């Protein structure tokens, strides 16, 4: 059974990202919520990328579109945007590597 765990994972991942982002956006200018979701989701996928619940969860929890909308909207704030891009890629790739290392 692949469909049900995938749907369950996505159905939890997307609203969890929304709740974290909404909560933190009220407190910080920097999009910390999306960054946290992307890094944690990358860590989990690095740990296990064969389980369908995890595949559904990580795909829906992490997002490229929200990250890019933020980058585009904040493009004039070069320093903040450069930090967001560097942290998103740097920490997400490091998180995949850490999850992968933990599993092996």
């Amino acid at each position, binding site marked *: 059974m692949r469909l049900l765990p995938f749907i369950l994972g996505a159905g939890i*991942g997307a609203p969890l990202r929304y709740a974290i982002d909404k909560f933190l956006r009220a407190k910080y200018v920097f999009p910390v919520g999306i960054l946290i979701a992307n890094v944690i989701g990358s860590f989990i996928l690095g740990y296990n990328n064969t389980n369908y619940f995890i595949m*559904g969860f990580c795909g*829906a929890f992490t997002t*490229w579109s929200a990250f890019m909308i933020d980058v585009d909207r904040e493009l004039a704030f070069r320093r903040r945007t450069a930090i967001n891009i560097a942290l998103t*890629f740097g920490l997400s790739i490091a998180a995949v590597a850490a999850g992968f290392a933990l599993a092996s």
Partner: protein
Amino acid sequence: MGITLIDLLLVALGGIFGSLVRWQCIEALPSMGLGVFIVNQAGVFIAGFVAYRIKTSIRQRLFWITGFAGGFTTLSSFAYLLHESTPVSGIFQAAESLLVSLLILKLVKPRVKS
């Protein structure tokens, strides 16, 4: 400005729908790398289009932008692919995705008349 159950449900349903479409798209495309690139760019277009081109309610935006486009696009799979790439190829792929997305958003946003 709190979070209601109906908002969470809309994001969940949009996220499930977007994730299922992503799964089918990536399986239909010849490689994982191309699949992730295509869905991420298409998702940016959808999110940008709904955000900037059509009149929508807050709940419609929650379903389509936060739920559907958020679930359709993925950063975890992209980070996984980059982790498997060489540093030079990784930097090139990241820059390519960033620039194409910025171009899509530039094109999708209505021009401001000056």
